[in-house]
């Protein structure tokens, strides 16, 4: 019983099946980064205004907090009044009220 199973591991067809299965598993397990994220590097809490799909929301980011938002493009107003347009894959770092896109 043992020998055939070991042989089966070695055949390319089985190997491929395993690789495909493993890949599917990995792709389901690993969250794909699609949303934009913002991280606050300042001491105080900041508030951003986000307009996405016609809805305006305000998100509050505490010190050293990272928040995911904006899945498919949005307008953001930074704490210092700068406006930016995001496509939904950026990472923003807030430093001294200014948002920098990384």
């Amino acid at each position, binding site marked *: 019983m043992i020998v055939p199973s070991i042989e089966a591991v070695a055949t390319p067809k089985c190997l491929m099946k395993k690789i495909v299965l493993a890949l599917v598993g990995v792709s389901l397990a690993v*969250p794909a980064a699609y949303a934009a994220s913002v991280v606050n590097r300042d001491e105080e809490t900041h508030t951003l205004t986000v307009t996405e799909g016609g809805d305006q929301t305000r998100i509050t980011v505490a010190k050293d907090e990272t928040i*995911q938002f904006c*899945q498919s493009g949005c307008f953001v107003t930074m704490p210092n*009044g*700068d406006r930016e347009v995001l496509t939904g894959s950026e990472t923003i770092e807030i430093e001294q009220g200014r948002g920098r896109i990384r």
Partner: protein
Amino acid sequence: MLVGHYLAKQGIRFIVQTEADRKIVGVLALLQQFFIAAFILLAPLHAFAQGDIIGQQQQAIEKVDEAIDALADVVASEAVDDAALVDARLELEKLSRDLLESGVKFRPRLSEINDRLDQLGPARGEGEPPEPEVVVQERQRLLDEKATINAMIGEAETLSVRIGRLVDDVAQKRRELFTNALSRRFDISAAFGPEVAEEFSSDIKRLYGTVSSWLNYVTQVKLRAALLAAGASLLCALALLIGGRRYFGDFITPDIDVEEPSYLARLTVALSSTLLPSAALALFLSLTYFLFHAFGVLPDEIAQLLRALFIVIATVFFVYRLTSAALAPRMPSWRLLPIECGASSRLCWLVAAMAGVTAFDYFMGRVYSVIGSQLSLTVATSLGATVAVGVLLILIGMVRPFPPKEEGEKPRPWPVSFRLLIFLVGIATILAALFGYIGFARFLSQQVVVTGAILATMYIGFLTSGAIGGEGAFARSRTGRLMAERLGLDEGVMDQLGLVAALGINILVVLIGAPMILLQWGFHLADLTTWTYGIANEIRIGSISFSIIGILTGIVVLVLGYFITRWFQAWLDGSVMARSRMDTGVRNSIRTAIGYVGVAIAALIGISAAGIDLSNLALVAGALSLGIGFGLQNIVSNFVSGLILLVERPFKAGDWIVAGAVSGTVKKISVRATEIETFQRQTVILPNSELINAAVGNWTHKNSLGRLEIPVGVAYGSDVRRVHGILMDIARSHPLVLKNPEPFVHFANFGDSSLDFEVRVYLADILRQLEVQNDIRFAIVEAFDKEGIEIPFPQRDLHLRSGFAAASDLQAKSPEQQVPDEKGEG
């Protein structure tokens, strides 16, 4: 500029050095001028490009604003219909994307401005020394530009909010339209007025007038185009008819000779004889419409009428094919349901009548709207049609289709739930029509016919897939038998293929049927595509989101990469390496290594194509590595050992190795273990780490040269020189024994019972040692026989020390003990 200066300086030095370099200097001077000119030319261009972004985006945003205004008007207007609203929503979504795109285009300029502002630093306050005027001006200019950009993004943001509201409006309006259409109550008394008949006849005359004037116009002005279109569509029909009969005829027409067709065969024939002809007809009709349209023969009114007519024809045909396929009134053995003959033909008629009435109502509705008839006429037609459909439904419910359980009884009716459903729908249609809810009644009757037909087809599809998935069903089917014959597949494979086919059919049925039903319910293609797009691109579960398309792309890329790798391997192995006469072991190593590298690269590309951030993967790998360190230690160590074996190649496939107790030929070096076949043909799978960590003997490492020893003993008293000579001769005379290193006869020992010799010969191919051993041993025995040299048995001389007493004493004590001694003496 700097480059130019440098070159100029060099140039001056050249002049000082030698006159002959004048030419080079000229070229250098030219270059310098070119650099200066380029700088002067490019600087303003750059500045122009910056200014241009704002201008361009301003225009783009203004354009979006105008488009939104126009769409808002469309949405707000009274006469807007559902299709226009769907289009408006699509347009709005596109505008929203455009806005985002324009906004993103500011990003590089914004970051440039921010960087420059950082370099300039904050404005100096009171009491500090004043800044140079240039700096103040530049800062102001940058701040102004930034403010402009911010204002424009703000404008875009406002517009996007407005788009969001409009999208909500569109959804709201569509809901209202739908409920209005269904809940609007008409005054049906108008339908019974005396003027309705007059209106009807006058409208029919108008319709006749419209059509005949069109025909006149066509025959007089557009005759050639019309003939061309008609000819082309006839050709299409001919091609479809002949091609369809030729290639699919077997699937469509049931074989009358078959006495008892299998369930799967009945289902397949029903499904294909419904779908294929309907698809062919739909294709033909749309082609015809397209041709007439393309040749410019159709004015708008006629086009609408023709479209409605074609839709009606296709639908009725589909329903007719479906019922006659499922009920098979003339061929009881091909019937899907166990229904009596009379009932089946009655049902066929009833369903056909229902489809016909609904189709008539739909078509007349179109006609009325095209020629602008009175509302009362529409109400009258629809009232009649929907009531008729309701009555037909009730009649269908009253049919007793199933044969009686015992002779002499009445046939059995439909199952209660089905009967109840049909009665309910029928009565609801009639009541709705009679109370004036004509819209609702029409909706119901159309749903019953079309959705019912689609659902029935889907149900047959599901049944077919279930039948195909049954054990051995696919192998017994005609296609299955053909495939098994052509491709030489065995039963297990066929069974798996059957399952795959069943799954495929299920998916296909849902993929085709579900959108058709949704379309039937008033959704638009645009809705469906938007949903599919959304589902395919992003599925969110909590904070995790992934895209189906991405994952599928990744898998496809991986599979492609895998096959490309295999192909490359085969090509390299078969064409390049085989021609360079490389050693098979090396070839094997290279092939395996390329296989690993290729699959790894394909996996990486696949993962990134799937949209998975590789840094995420690194994170997971980091977290897993501890677990791997403990749990998969052995596997990993074997894997790494396998790689070392491939690179270092202490042995290769085909080598004869001895590892511990295992001795045999290496068959294959895999990731985890190495396959060794012993000479008894037992396959031993040895983990790679054992081959790396312990000593491995390889008989055929660099070459297959090896030494063979054959010990032989001769009796004491033989002529040892003669023996040496004979053995030497035998060794030398064997064709497989190498002349260099020379064979050697070793006088090894004065043994217990013999003088021990050892024949040591070198063979070019150690794998042939058994053959050589045999030959030499035969030769030795023959030669010794001839020369009278004895090969002794082990001998022992026994000396008895004293006389009889001692001997008899011994015998009395243990008579058995002496037996071996006596034997030994013999």
